[in-house]
């Protein structure tokens, strides 16, 4: 199985930095919009 055979490790680079930026942006958006989205979902659920 390829996953188990693969023992190589990568080196952190621009990709690692990009992944961290994505995490921060997504988490920030979730914190900012999460409550509003929850309110909308609850409104829709209440009307159904």
């Amino acid at each position, binding site marked *: *199985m*390829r*996953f*188990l*055979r*693969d*023992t*190589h*490790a*990568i*080196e*952190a*680079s*621009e*990709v*690692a*930095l*990009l*992944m*961290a*930026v994505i*995490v*921060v942006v997504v*988490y920030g958006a979730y914190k900012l919009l999460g409550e509003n989205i929850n309110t909308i979902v609850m409104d829709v659920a209440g009307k159904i």
Partner: protein
Amino acid sequence: MPALAFLPLSLWLVACVVCDLKTRQVPNALTLSALLLAAVWRTIAGGWLVVGMVLALIAISDVPRTARTLLAGAAWMACILFGSLEHGNLSTALFAAWVLWELGVMGGADAKMLTVLLLLIGDPLLLLAVLLAGGLQGLVGLLRKEQTVPYTVAIAAGTVWYLMAHIL
């Protein structure tokens, strides 16, 4: 994760980092044995569905790409639909680690280490801590014009950061 496991876990992380620094590889003797232990631990803790998903992802890694993607997505969806919210979140973090390996962003050793840690600790926030530690490491590497910092260092640093914030 029991507090008693902190010391062996730290030793395991150090061993993985040392192997990576020396050879740019982490031997299966380190990762597979830990993966087996973590899978047993998570099954005992009630996460058999999540462990099942991980085993499915491992089993399909030789299947052609399109079928592999569909099967992996189905395994993840099964976890979300039939598992609890906690298991759904954990399976999402494990699936994300698998996707990063599948895309070649992460090496097999890194993905196995992350899988072990997520199964053992059981909190998807660990993945965020590792990704942020990796980003910080990448930033420092770029500023110092060093392109050769192993990602296992970020995995270990992120894990220690998470454990210090949540357990100790």
